[in-house]
């Protein structure tokens, strides 16, 4: 089972809605596979505090708050490589 398949995302939609908050359990590093419910539109990812495990994703008119230290670390590593 892929890393992403084990994750459950909770989205709160609509204007003015409180952002959804999700705690994710990081799995072992492996090639990610897109699942059927994955986003089909542009996504903006925002890490405000590099010391936290929080990642904000803007997709459509939704904002998802994801807590995943592993994912945040991989983004930080990617961002720091340039």
């Amino acid at each position, binding site marked *: 089972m892929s890393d992403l398949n084990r994750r459950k995302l909770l989205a709160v939609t609509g204007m003015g809605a409180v*952002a959804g908050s999700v705690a994710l359990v990081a799995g072992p590093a492996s090639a990610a596979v897109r699942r059927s419910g994955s986003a089909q539109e542009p*996504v903006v990812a925002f890490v405000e505090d590099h010391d936290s495990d929080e990642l904000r994703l803007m997709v459509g*008119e939704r904002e998802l708050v994801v807590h995943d230290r592993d994912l945040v670390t991989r983004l930080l590593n990617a961002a720091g490589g340039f």
Partner: protein
Amino acid sequence: MSSHREAPEMAKDPVADSTDVYAFVSPDKPDTVKIIANYIPLQQPDGGPNFYEFGDDVAYDINISHTTRARADITYRFHFTTKIRNPKTFLYNTGPIENIRDETWNRPQFYKVTRIENGRSVVLGRGLTCPPVNVGTRSTPEYAKLARQAVHTRGKRTFFAGQRADAFHVDLGSIFDLGGLRPFNKAHAIPLEKMDGINSVQAYNVHSIAIQVPISDLTRKHNRPTDVMSRSSVIGVWTDASRRKSRMFDSRKGKYVGHGPYVQVSRLGNPLVNEVLIPMAEKDAWNADAPREDKRYAKYVDKPELAGLLPVLYPGDTFANLRAYKKPRADLNAILLTGIPSGVVDGFQNYTGPIESDMLRLNVAVPPSKDENKLGLIGKDAAGFPNGRRVGDDVVTIELRAIAGVTIPLVDKDYKPDGAASAVEDGTSTDPKTVMGSFPYLGTPGGGYQTKPGTTDSK
């Protein structure tokens, strides 16, 4: 100004800048409430080739609270869409625009209006057409006709969205030059010769969203109240504008693309609250907050900076009583943040409960005045500001006099206002051309061709 360019960040984003809100019951249709929300301040009528328009990337809301929660119980939301009919030309119009559906208007704008109540959204209109701006004598020769074509009625509700004349008036040049009021120039700490006020908004246009809806559309019991003293006769009104939380510049399209939810960037209830009472460092945060969170700003209403400045700017005995008054300004707190409870003004109240929140409060059971007093409630006319706000209400004078102490006796019978408190004004008045007696109540916007540039002197 009322709220034109009132906050540092918002001053950079005029398309989302709420400038004025009006809410009133008028004699021509006394069973309806009219709410006008203005945006995009200080439009020069000759501001082509890219004239002013609503933002396609902005959500514009008119909010109504009819409970004591200071929350939006009802929202009218407006989303705009702009089209380019002929991408090969630089022209806003390729010939005279004689009808709002004319193909000669190259950049028409349309909107969708949605009504939201109790979480249920109902789209009331799609593809409603705005009028073009008033380009000039050749391009928009019968502008009043174009504006009438852009008045859309859906059931018992009527909508308009487009350019109008700005009916607000204020002497910005003097007021923001160390609190100067030209008619009182000689009494200022830096005296100058006495002058008439100069209306800094004269001849500028705004973009208005106007609704005319049955009173029963907005009230708590969805009826038309007749008891002025009943809580359910009062509604709270404010407007806001929201942008997408994230914006990325798309170099291929040459414009920003939004992602994520809409978040509030501008709001407005009572005129001049953010402009004059909220400190500069907090103005943009205030714009992003909801009215129900205004308790954190109440200290600036209870002890307004301007009330402390007036005795300094106009020294001597001009504001001696105001200078000596040290109590929190319960009068201003009631007028601006809770509404005036019963027992303060005979036969009147517009109290919305104890939650301090900047809303324009309208008691819809107060009959409209056939002979308006521009000073509203302090002029013994309970149909005017701060009971809602009519287009002709002189809110600058009303609020100046209130801050100067004229309303303190409403809550503190021992206080005697200074003589200057009931005389102070900026010396400007409503330009009659900016007002109409029927929907949408703001006058025909100034035309580009017809505009003559003003004068300035840096000496």
